[in-house]
């Protein structure tokens, strides 16, 4: 499974085939279909965002230039959602990465039940987001939830607390759920990075008298920096995009306490059927995300041969 397995060297234009139409022919079906089902809808989204368009009233579609965009920047809910999105990503990603790092370092050690532990830890990754959301709603439940029960028994709390119904805690409750859902991804990626560091580095460092902490800072961290960077970028993009868990857990409430930008766009379209404004919100959010996507793409581009 490595690129070293390729025995025949190749360069641009080495064979006659490389300039033929054949590879394009092989690519045509996939390219055509993705153009149709991804890029055409995207163009439609941009088109919609320039219109005042409420579904079920197709006759009322009017072109309003950037009216939706201007409305968005004057919209108080837009700014609440914007700050929530930043807070949400700013806490979730570091929490996932840190927990993933600790998990990976532990799983990189030799112990007899390591394969079992590794398999069990990635379970959250495999669960449907609806199930995750409902499961955690049950845990946070004000009357019967196990979280209140545990805190009560430990003597930390005297009465039950509605974690998801209180505007001060709802966003953080969702963040904990997303951290739980996402840390296995980091653990798996970082573990792969750890395993690519040659053992001899640590042996040499130990001979030179380096402490565990020094080994971690000077060998481990530089060794996994590449993987960690890629994982953080990918995960930030995914977490920023994901709205299913939050939608099922709180529906954006209470009030606007757990509204994020993509969720606001979705709710605008789904509840208010305001597809013009919803599309404009989605386009604004996509533009904001573009910077991160470009950084990621340029990293990948370097690894392509």
């Amino acid at each position: 499974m490595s690129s070293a397995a390729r025995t025949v060297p190749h360069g641009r234009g080495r064979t006659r085939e490389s300039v033929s139409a054949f590879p394009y022919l092989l690519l045509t079906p996939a390219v055509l279909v993705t153009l149709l089902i991804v890029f055409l809808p995207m163009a439609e989204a941009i088109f919609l965002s320039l219109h005042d368009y409420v579904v079920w009233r197709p006759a009322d579609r009017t072109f309003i230039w950037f009216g939706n965009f201007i409305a968005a920047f004057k919209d108080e809910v837009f700014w609440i959602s914007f700050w929530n999105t930043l807070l949400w990503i700013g806490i979730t990603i570091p929490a996932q990465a840190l927990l993933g790092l600790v998990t990976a370092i532990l799983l990189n050690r030799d112990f007899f039940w390591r394969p079992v532990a590794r398999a069990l830890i990635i379970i959250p990754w495999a669960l449907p987001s609806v199930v995750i959301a409902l499961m955690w709603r049950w845990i946070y439940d004000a009357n019967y939830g196990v979280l209140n029960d545990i805190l009560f028994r430990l003597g930390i709390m005297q009465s039950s607390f509605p974690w998801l119904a209180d505007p001060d805690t709802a966003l953080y409750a969702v963040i904990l759920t997303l951290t739980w859902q996402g840390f296995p991804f980091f653990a798996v990626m970082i573990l792969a990075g750890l395993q690519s560091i040659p053992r001899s580095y640590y042996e040499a460092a130990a001979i030179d008298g380096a402490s565990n902490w020094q080994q971690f800072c000077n060998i481990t961290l530089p060794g996994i920096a590449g993987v960690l960077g890629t994982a953080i970028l990918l995960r930030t993009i995914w977490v920023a995009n994901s709205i299913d868990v939050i939608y099922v857990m709180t529906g954006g409430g209470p009030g606007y306490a757990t509204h994020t930008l993509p969720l606001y766009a979705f709710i605008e379209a789904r509840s208010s059927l305001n597809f013009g404004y919803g599309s404009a919100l989605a386009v604004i959010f996509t533009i904001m995300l573009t910077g991160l996507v470009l950084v990621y793409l340029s990293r990948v581009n370097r690894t392509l041969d």
Partner: protein
Amino acid sequence: MVRRQSPLRSLFGTHLPVLAIVAFALGPYIWMALTSFTPQEHLLQAGVALDPQKWTAANYERLVGRTDFPFNMVHSFIVAIGTVVLGLSLSVTAAYAFSRFRFPGRRVLMIKFLVINMFPVVLLILPLFVIMRRLGLIDTHAALIIANATVAIPFSVWMMTSYINSIPRSLDEAAMIDGCSRLGALRKVILPLILPGIIATGIYIFITSWNEYLYALTLGGRNVRTITVAIQTLIGEYQIEWGLLTAGGVLGAMPATLLFLLIQKRLISGLTQGAVKG
């Protein structure tokens, strides 16, 4: 890391911390399973039953007998299999082209497939709804399969490319010297060799389609209601029946979870390969 650790040190340094993380990862799922075995009356009066003698399958019987849950599973299955077939069939030849040929526009096209997975779902979901409504496809399997394919096709192109890259080119060339055409070499030599990779990719597409919720909610309806949407509708109007809901969660998550455990090794090696190189 090099020296041997004493048993006490390894207990507190390794076993207990790993155990804590495993408990954190599995705890919510186990709690859900325990809830699903607890009868409704017991749940309201005494909470979740920890004593196995009090467990019953009543919630599951109600779920299978009195709701449309079995039909929802069939719909989820049709959509997931459809997405797997569409995703795999379109991506094999594309991945072969990316792996074996160097041609102008190759990088741009590879990046094109990668960038698709970065688009926010909301950006696609609204126009897809408008387009599907225009085509009269709302509430059909086709609509959900097409929507899921927006993610499945690019993912599968990248995975397949990495699998084909791991097969030496000399094998294609040997087959062609023996009289195979390019496509013949792909079919007779490459495909059998990457079959495990194809299966892993197919299973992963199956899992993501099975777990998908937003497209199913928006583009589905009364006729085509997948398992994820059905679980959500189990929430009653006045009171949440947690026993029924958690039974739905356990059953609904079962296929994806088992498949994931089955392919995790191969999948992870495919996923992390690119990242480690970078």
